[in-house]
């Protein structure tokens, strides 16, 4: 036998999930929402999405070449960042918004710190926060009427609610996407389809979105109606705005969410609380971006304190108690 044998540490079997495979699953899960965006708001949606994705991938490649690192666009994480950012923008937005936003997201929120696995906040949301601050009008007025593709400068249902009026579309309209809104957040059904795919494939932990949606629902239900408690419309609060998109696709970014199941649940709840605080008592009509960004920053703290009870902990605690008691008696 003249062949050389490979000698590596155990285990010698590797699981079926790879980084590329996980990213592909996420992209696949966003396809229904992207298709819905094109169907509801017209071909401009596709232009916005493509501009965002191309800018994200190009920025990553150019930056990595510039700092002499391996170009890693093949792992598809930049594609996802670009796609997610595009889905949070209004359909009529000028193209420089997604291009600059994606570049900021990929370079400043991720690559500067070391690339994949080192971002300290969700890159897509960081990009959105940047463009929200830089071009607030682009993000609050470039709406497009559903199915007729006319540019409209009215308010989204969320803004309408905020101003105290109650003339918002019906629940079925909200679910299908027959209303004003950004590319990705409008067709809730498409988002839920993608989300169930992700959960079924084991890509995301259901506890995070459950905590988030539960907290938003509870907060809106308890405090939603001004002047009275427990009379708010929790369901509408969850379906409007970017809650579904944020809960299932943004907050669940691996790098910026906790590593334990319980930790993820608490992160979801925390993000939901901040979102409700901003929506009900802040000046923005939409609080998802900052809710998730805030909990991204808190994640390391959660990880520090959410240490599971290791196997055998039961004995360690009782042994220590016995030792202390014995010490006291001595």
């Amino acid at each position: 036998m003249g062949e050389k044998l490979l000698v590596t540490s155990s285990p010698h079997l590797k699981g079926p999930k790879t980084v590329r495979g996980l990213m592909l699953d996420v992209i696949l899960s966003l396809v229904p929402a992207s298709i819905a965006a094109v169907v509801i708001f017209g071909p401009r949606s596709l232009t916005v999405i493509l501009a965002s994705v191309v800018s994200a991938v190009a920025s990553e490649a150019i930056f990595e070449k510039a700092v002499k690192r391996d170009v890693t666009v093949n792992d598809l994480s930049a594609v996802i960042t670009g796609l997610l950012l595009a889905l949070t923008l209004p359909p009529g937005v000028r193209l420089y918004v997604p291009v600059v936003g994606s570049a900021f997201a990929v370079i400043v929120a991720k690559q500067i710190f070391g690339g994949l696995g080192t971002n300290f906040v969700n890159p897509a949301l960081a990009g959105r926060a940047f463009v929200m601050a830089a071009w607030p009008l682009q993000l609050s007025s470039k709406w497009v009427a559903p199915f007729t593709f006319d540019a409209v400068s009215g308010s989204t249902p969320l803004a309408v609610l905020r101003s105290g009026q109650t003339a918002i579309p019906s629940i079925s309209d909200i679910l299908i996407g027959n209303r004003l809104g950004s590319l990705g957040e409008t067709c809730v059904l498409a988002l839920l389809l993608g989300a169930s795919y992700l959960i079924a494939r084991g890509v995301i932990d259901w506890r995070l979105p459950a905590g988030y949606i539960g907290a938003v629902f509870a907060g809106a239900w308890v405090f939603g109606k001004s002047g009275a408690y427990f009379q708010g419309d929790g369901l509408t609060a969850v379906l409007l705005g970017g809650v579904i998109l944020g809960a299932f696709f943004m907050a669940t970014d691996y790098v910026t969410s906790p590593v334990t199941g319980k930790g993820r649940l608490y992160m979801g709840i925390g993000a939901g609380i901040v979102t409700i605080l901003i929506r009900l008592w802040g000046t923005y009509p939409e609080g998802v971006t900052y809710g998730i960004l805030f909990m991204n920053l808190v994640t390391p703290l959660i990880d520090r304190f959410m240490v599971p009870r290791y196997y055998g902990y039961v004995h360690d605690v009782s042994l220590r108690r016995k030792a202390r008691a014995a010490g006291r008696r001595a």
Partner: protein
Amino acid sequence: MVNLRRGFGGVKLPDRKGLSAHAKIEDAGIPAELVLFLSQHTGAPSKPFVKVGDAVKRGQKVADAQGPVSAALHAPTSGIVKAIEPRYQPVLACMVDAVVIEPDGKNETVEGLAPVATNLHAVSRQKIVEIAREAGLVGLGGAAFPTAVKLTPPPGTVIDTYLLNGAECEPYLTADQKLMEEEATTIVFGFRALMKGAGAPKGIVCVEDNKPEAIDAMKKAIGPFKELDVAVLPSKYPRGGEKNLIEVVLGREVPPPPGLPLNVGVIVSNVGTAYAMAQAILTGLPLVERVITVTGEGVARPANFKALIGTPLSYLVEKAGGFSGTPGKVIMGGPMMGTAMRGLDVPVLKGTSGVLVLRKEQSAPEPVLPCLHCGKCVDSCPLRLLPVWIASYAENGYLDEAEKFRAVDCCECGACAYSCPSRRPLVQSIRLAKARIAERRRAAAAKKQK
């Protein structure tokens, strides 16, 4: 039927037992050379008392146990002691003294080898422990802990349950499965002997649900004995690991190292050990052979052999039809916890349960990506540890933090590394941390003694 509890973590692995599950146990025969390491069990090495040139017969003791935690060593077949020299021990990965025997092909059994009893009533508890010690019995599940020592826990320990581990949760391996299918009655005899030796009133046979014929065979074999029961486990890795087994079957948790199952009143032994115990009582034969699965996509005819301890891997692979395709990895043990071999010129040890040959295409190394912090390793760790942090701390030299996150508790099952999408070498990093922590503790203890 035993009620099972929920265990944490674990991964569902591809079974791959179909390759050798239908191969009946066959005799491997006598190779040209047998290498018996003096250190192939947990504890102090054995002390040889034969000399080069001595003639030995099958079942003859060639080395004695040294100290309380050690095991005796016996010649598997008749021949001449060719040498007593250092040879490369694959699991300890260093040169270890070994008794090298050149068989003469006559396979003569040593005089005086006779059955001790055919009925358990004829042997006392002390006699069973003595037989286990004299026969050089060690745990055949892999760790090779001297059985006689296991059967005599520290005074004051009460053992209330004995678990017989027939789970065989590693993919590809079918040695225990075939042994249970073909020798269930003998295994049960040996199990009851072990229980008597330990003084345990209750025994549970644990099998995974991917072995239906074995389950039926064992259920039939324990029929007449009211103190025995069968627990059928869902196939998840590593439910067959001793700590996980106790958690799932009995709902108890073994204290962290240096805690042992005896601290919660349990002893666990492999089905192979029970079979060897039965052989030692029923025929008087000491531990000189065991069932080994030679399997993998890289061998032409996967088989389950009854092989002599000390048989070289090259002999067994040839018996299994030789290589199929280009071999990439040869693993002693299962694919999750086995050791990769440098070559085939290493012998089978007492604790070797399988030889796995993987093709080159199956064993190509994958690039390592940065940690995604996805938590899949945390979700899969059966001991509820945080492999992500232990490995990161170990890789960056932070030994104190690695110790605080309980690196020492890790059983190296590999479930974390299996689940890692970035293909990070988690088990390797944790092993490194464990080794460095142990070294540090030893140095501190030595300093304290001075």
